[in-house]
């Protein structure tokens, strides 16, 4: 959405098509709770934000990108304020900021604990103002059209009617979000199936740093609903079975009654999730009906703080877990939350493939490195969405109209979809079974801790699942809102993305940020201070290359928290 507005503002004569498989205000950004980071407080500085981001990302961030990011983030957040976003305020009416995991200063802008919701609705509603933005709501993109070495449009299914149609364009920006759904237990919505990554990969653009998958330390068991980091920022504690704040055993500082920045519960997400696994191994977690959990304790905050600062947390607990955090402990466990990697782009959102841009979670500009800090993702969407929009607008203004040979390509794609899925009568594999097996494979092989052996096994299983996918059975041949068709396409995207994750993880023989190998426990800056780039070869196999990290000011150091 941010990109679309940027284009409309840069060049009102360009026509913008916003294609989304759900109504835009249903996109997953709507779920983001905690907040968006941008330097505004008087005692804060851009350098500190940059440093936190880089060290949080275990020095895998491109520092030029981070610099640009921290500089533009407050601007973008402010622009959103001018568009009406209801940021929470101080009593004097200025923007209020809160603490967030891994940040040394309070710099996270928030709109109670529905930040993403308010941001998305503000963006969406503001975009209605621009007449040059044409929306294709509930259109599902199945393929990028590439001709002459540049991307010139997409093929999409209009879900309501089942029409399969090309949408030609001088430039395409992917903003399709993450791929949490390749794992069984995730905070991500059902729409986050890595479509954009798979589309770009299939079209020949490389995927970057796919092995870095973030677990969020506090998800509700079973549903995977996220309890925002803000709950800890406001002073929540993590307790094990003995009611002990176990994080103090993992080099994360000493317990204080008040929350201390970059310490204990406000440490970075990768460390907290890893501590959980160790705690389970020591047998100090609590057994629940859906596996081991620890407790999040908010009781000491009192009803007033909870209702004023994190009302949504209370609402979610009451609605989905039948628990009132004012009086009770909340069972939580780590849950797949975010993918740091994505389509490789430069600082303007451009991919190596001409005409293709990407922004948001689907992209990897590389500001998140090996571990994203909470509340950096929302401003990332804004900053790089806007940049990609501007860059794409400029590019598009210089291009000629898409050539007609693309129509033949689109026609092929339509035939493929009809032959392989819509009119398919044979096939024996159940769609849901393959999906479940893929998710289990990923959790076992590419979870919080990984090993070469486990990853190899996972890679084999995925290969096998790809084979079985060919034999999937289709029951629904209707054209009208065929959700089985979208589910099967999403599964095919997810299988590709899953393979990419496993391949990259297998190659990276070190432990860094969210990628922890039991067989290579240390960080290896000699060999792996580099981004992995996963390409698809013309024969369909995949190849991983490495690209050095851009380092401008901060040399890699040790990540220290709690001191």
């Amino acid at each position, binding site marked *: 959405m941010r990109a679309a507005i940027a284009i409309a503002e840069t060049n009102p004569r360009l026509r913008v098509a916003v294609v989304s498989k*759900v*109504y835009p*205000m*249903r*996109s*997953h950004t*709507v*779920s983001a709770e905690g907040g968006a980071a941008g330097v505004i407080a008087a005692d804060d500085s851009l350098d500190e934000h940059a440093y936190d981001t880089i060290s949080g990302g275990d020095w895998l961030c491109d520092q030029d990108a981070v610099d640009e990011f921290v500089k533009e983030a407050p*601007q973008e957040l*402010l*622009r959103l*304020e*001018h*568009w*009406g976003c*209801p*940021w*929470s*305020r101080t*009593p*004097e*009416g*200025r*923007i209020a900021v809160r603490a967030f995991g891994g940040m040394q200063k309070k710099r996270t802008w928030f709109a109670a604990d*529905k930040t993403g*919701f*308010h941001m998305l*609705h503000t963006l969406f*509603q*503001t975009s*209605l*103002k621009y007449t040059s933005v044409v929306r294709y*709501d509930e259109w599902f993109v199945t393929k990028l059209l590439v001709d002459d070495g540049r991307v010139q449009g997409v093929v999409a299914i209009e879900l*309501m009617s089942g029409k399969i149609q090309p949408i030609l364009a001088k430039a395409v920006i992917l903003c399709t979000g993450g791929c949490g759904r390749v794992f069984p237990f995730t905070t991500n*919505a*059902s*729409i986050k199936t890595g479509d954009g990554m798979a589309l770009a990969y299939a079209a020949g653009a490389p995927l970057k740093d796919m092995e870095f998958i973030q677990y969020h330390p506090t998800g509700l068991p*079973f*549903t995977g*609903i*996220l309890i925002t980091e803000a709950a800890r920022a406001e002073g929540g504690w993590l307790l094990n079975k003995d009611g002990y704040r176990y994080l103090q055993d993992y080099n994360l500082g000493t317990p204080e009654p008040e929350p201390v920045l970059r310490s204990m519960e406000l440490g970075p997400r990768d460390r907290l999730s890893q501590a959980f696994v160790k705690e389970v191994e020591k047998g100090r977690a609590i057994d629940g009906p859906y596996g081991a959990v620890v407790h999040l304790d908010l009781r000491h905050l009192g009803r007033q703080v909870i209702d004023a600062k994190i009302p949504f947390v209370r609402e*979610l607990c009451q*609605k*989905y*877990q039948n628990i009132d955090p004012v009086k009770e402990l909340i069972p939580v466990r780590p849950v797949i939350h975010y993918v740091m990697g994505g389509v490789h782009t430069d600082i303007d959102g451009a991919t190596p493939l001409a005409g293709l841009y990407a922004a948001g979670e689907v992209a990897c500009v590389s500001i998140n490195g090996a571990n994203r800090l909470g509340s950096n993702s929302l401003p990332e969407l804004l900053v790089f969405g806007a940049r990609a929009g501007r860059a794409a607008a400029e590019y598009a203004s210089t291009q000629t109209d898409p050539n007609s040979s693309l129509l033949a390509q689109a026609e092929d794609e339509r035939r493929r979809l009809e032959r392989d899925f819509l009119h398919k009568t044979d096939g024996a594999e*159940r*769609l*849901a079974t393959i999906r479940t097996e893929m998710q289990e494979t990923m959790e076992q092989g590419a979870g919080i801790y990984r090993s070469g052996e486990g990853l190899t096994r996972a890679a084999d299983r995925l290969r096998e699942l790809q084979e079985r996918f060919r034999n999937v059975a*289709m*029951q*629904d041949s*209707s*054209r*009208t*809102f*065929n*959700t*089985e068709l979208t*589910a099967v396409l999403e599964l095919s995207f997810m299988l590709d993305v899953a393979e990419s994750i496993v391949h990259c993880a297998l190659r990276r023989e070190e432990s860094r940020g969210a990628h922890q190998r039991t067989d290579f426990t240390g960080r290896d800056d000699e060999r792996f201070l580099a981004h992995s780039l996963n390409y698809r070869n013309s024969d369909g196999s995949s190849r991983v290359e490495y690209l050095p990290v851009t380092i401008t000011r901060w040399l890699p150091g040790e990540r220290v928290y709690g001191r």
Partner: protein
Amino acid sequence: MDDRITLRLARYRPEEEAEPTFEEYEVPCRKDWVVLDGLNYIKDQLDGTLSFRWSCRMGICGSCGMTVNGEPKLTCETFLTDYAPGPVRIEPLQNFPVIRDLIVEMTDFMQKLTTIKPWIVRDEERPLAEGEYRQTPDEMSEYMQYSMCINCMLCYAACPVYSLDPKFIGPAAIALAQRYNLDSRDEGSGERLDILSQHEGIWACTFVGECTEVCPKDVDPAGAIQRYKLDAALTSLKSFLLPWGAR
């Protein structure tokens, strides 16, 4: 733990039938399963052709609204056990055309939403360099409630006026107009009033109050509309009495 419950689902396959029919499925009824889990179980295990919308399954994206035993509900926060021993009747949202099975057509709302100008209208935009607009928490609380709308359409499904007259702009759109009207940063209330004071706008609402009843986010559209009526009536009274006055 593994009790079972029967779901009676409205099915509509536009290519084959002229009217919806009902089909029954039996699904596990677990303590922490919501209606949506039941539907997904059917789609994954029993019948892949069943179509419905969902996404976040945490009550924030607004896509999973359906009619459960006659009441409009978000199915991701409606527990199966509350309906035990069943059967549970699940239909698409009322008052909308049905596209297929449990999916309704809602472009009507999307168009209405655009007409009420749900964005900040300023005579003069403030440059970014001048920083934020000041807005105290009290000023903010004026409109906050109305900004919580997730566009789930439950209120439209519940509103009798909308069912009788689809031209009625409807609760959520009016509440959103109010959200911007009451925002101290906005200067567009005059423009919006012209749209909303048409007959299909606020005056068509008879304050049934159902919309507020069913709203999962406590937006209170009924209150918003009432408030709007009062403001609008006074404004137009003023301009009636002093036609040459302001504007």
